[in-house]
């Protein structure tokens, strides 16, 4: 029989026992729904975790330092047997890094521990310069107030914990001023031409600097709940964020890598203690890291942590999938039961079909299609039901979160691949369930079948 005729006939058969077949299909739908709901929660949680992590800049950022950079307790990390002098992290290197594929931006780390005065009270905190691109990173989504008005604005965004230290009513802080007290580093071109009487002794590379106390008035423009500057390379999470350009013009003394921070060297070129390279996505970090190392710099990222996170979610999703599959397995038995019952009911009909010229394969395909159609519709309804379940769980969770004064989250996610795989899986499982009934129907002896009352 031609496929179209087989399908017509199968659909007609399904319509004739509409209640039973609808219930069987509903069974499949519930099975698929449980699978989709479970996996959508898994995917949703994974996306949530990945979003939070990418917002922190931990997983798509590579910290680049020269090979002679001080690390840890101030011990130099030199390559054991490299004959060549270590490459300097200067503007040329910065441009070269910017040209690497999949690099969004390269910026120096400006992060320093300092004192902030607000209402004439001192507060100690870590200040970080934020590049303008972080505006779109998602970190500042849902913030109170607004992002910096310009790249050189004297403005500050406070992390909520720090804001709570300043005032119990955090929203009232926006628009107010605070005073940043910091130590400005003023460079000394050489040991002989010392411009500042209070300067520190010159360092071994010939340059030197003095530290001068300075103040800067900043306007609080926003309060953010995430930790956009939770990155490494500094010391701890920054609680006061300001535009990167503003922060770098302060030339504030940074405790970390004090020796190598932005300065004018004897050659007149700017060199950096470290540069942050932001990749388009965490998946490109590994390749970028390799390229940077080839350029002759140290490169460091939290890729390994991200890898184990992915492993965790793969295992987590698999477990959810297995639980979801249990319901589908029960639904599969429903299909087998329905089709075996149909064979008993339609025994005579199968005999007539064979007497009229139906081949065994025609009968087999007929039952197969019936199983597949139930699987297809079960799959469609199941995906819809699963999506709905996910929405209900998300809604319930968000109601709870809002009562706890927490921001709503997107707990479940049904991506297109999940819809497609659930549909294909439902059809395949249903076809597998139809295997036994179809072969049993095909093998029916037509003489016995015609005699059957």
């Amino acid at each position, binding site marked *: *029989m031609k496929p179209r*005729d087989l399908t017509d006939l199968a659909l007609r058969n399904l319509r004739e026992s509409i209640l039973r077949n609808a219930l069987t299909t509903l069974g499949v739908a519930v099975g698929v729904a449980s699978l989709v709901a479970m996996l959508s929660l898994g995917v949703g949680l994974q996306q949530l975790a990945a979003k939070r992590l990418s917002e922190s800049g931990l997983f798509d950022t590579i910290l680049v330092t020269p090979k002679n950079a001080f690390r840890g307790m101030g011990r130099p990390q030199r390559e054991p047997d490299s004959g060549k002098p270590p490459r300097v992290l200067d503007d040329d290197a910065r441009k070269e890094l910017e040209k690497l594929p999949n690099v969004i931006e390269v910026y120096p780390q400006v992060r320093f521990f300092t004192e902030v005065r607000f209402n004439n009270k001192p507060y100690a905190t870590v200040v970080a310069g934020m590049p303008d691109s972080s505006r779109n990173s998602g970190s500042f989504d849902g913030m109170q107030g607004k992002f910096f008005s310009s790249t050189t604005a004297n403005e500050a965004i406070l992390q909520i914990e720090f804001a709570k230290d300043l005032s119990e009513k955090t929203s009232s802080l926006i628009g107010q001023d605070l005073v940043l007290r910091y130590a400005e580093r003023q460079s000394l071109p050489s040991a002989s031409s010392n411009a500042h009487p209070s300067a520190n002794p010159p360092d071994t590379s010939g340059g030197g600097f003095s530290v001068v106390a300075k103040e800067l008035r900043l306007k609080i423009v926003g309060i953010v709940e995430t930790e956009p500057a939770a990155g490494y390379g500094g010391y701890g999470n920054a609680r006061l964020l300001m535009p990167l350009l503003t922060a770098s013009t302060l030339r504030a003394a940074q405790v970390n890598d004090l020796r190598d921070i932005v300065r004018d060297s004897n050659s007149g070129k700017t060199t950096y203690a470290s540069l942050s390279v932001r990749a388009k996505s965490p998946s490109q970090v590994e390749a970028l890291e390799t390229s940077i190392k080839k350029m002759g710099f140290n490169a460091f990222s939290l890729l390994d942590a991200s890898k184990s996170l992915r492993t965790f979610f793969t295992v987590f999703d698999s477990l959810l999938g297995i639980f979801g599959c249990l319901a589908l397995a029960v639904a599969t038995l429903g299909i087998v039961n329905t089709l075996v019952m149909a064979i008993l009911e339609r025994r005579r009909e199968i005999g*007539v079909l064979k007497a*009229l*010229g*139906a*081949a065994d394969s025609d009968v087999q395909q007929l039952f197969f299609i019936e199983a597949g159609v139930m699987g297809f519709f079960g799959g469609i309804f199941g995906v819809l039901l699963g999506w709905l379940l996910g929405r209900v769980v998300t809604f319930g969770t968000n109601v709870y979160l809002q009562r706890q004064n927490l921001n709503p989250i997107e707990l479940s996610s049904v991506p297109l691949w999940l819809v497609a795989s659930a549909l294909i899986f439902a059809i395949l499982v249903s076809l597998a369930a139809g295997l036994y009934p179809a072969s049993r129907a095909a093998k029916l002896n*037509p003489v016995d079948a015609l005699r059957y009352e």
Partner: protein
Amino acid sequence: MPTAAPAIRLDRVSRHYTMGGTSVRAVDELSLSVANNEFLALLGSSGSGKSTLLNLIAGLDRLTSGSIFAHGQDIASLSSLELARYRSKTIGMIFQSFNLLPRMTLEENIELPLRLAEVDRAERPARVREALERVRLTHRLGHRPTELSGGEQQRVAIARALVNRPKILLADEPTGNLDSATGEAILNLLRELRSQLGMTIVMVTHERPLAEAFADRLAIMGDGKLLRTTSLKGLPQ
């Protein structure tokens, strides 16, 4: 009128069953020829093996031994798929209980063999109408079998058997569920169609008067064997 070349030739045909450990010889070493365009009635008491023989000719059942040739085709040598094609193209069957599919309309019932024979969709409505015209039931096209009388249902079954223009029509007690007048009408119709279409008809019946009135020849069976044949129209035996 029958011609000399046989439409069906049975050569020492046997069909044995094993039931409860004993072998039952439903058909035993039976040889018989049915001429082209002949109307043969298979008579015999219950359990004489008439229906088994009909099923063997129809290719619904497999021989234990012997051979059956239908229009020169050795049925015993055919694969399962070839047998299905043989049933679809060469054979038409009607049954005592009509065996129409109650969930389908008359039109769909008659179309079913055309679907199985993979006849082009566009051609099917005309073929269905033609078959219904032959049994004079065109006005009941959209009805379901249960809405028809027994005689009408059997006419639909005949239309369904004829729609693929088979060379051989096998009828298993076609009048068994009908009153005598309707039964006669059905046999009249079969004889008329045989003349029109040049078919060979083999009919199993236990109603000897009807068989004598309509068949060309009687083949009487007992205990799986052919006891005798009786020509009613002066045909060669």
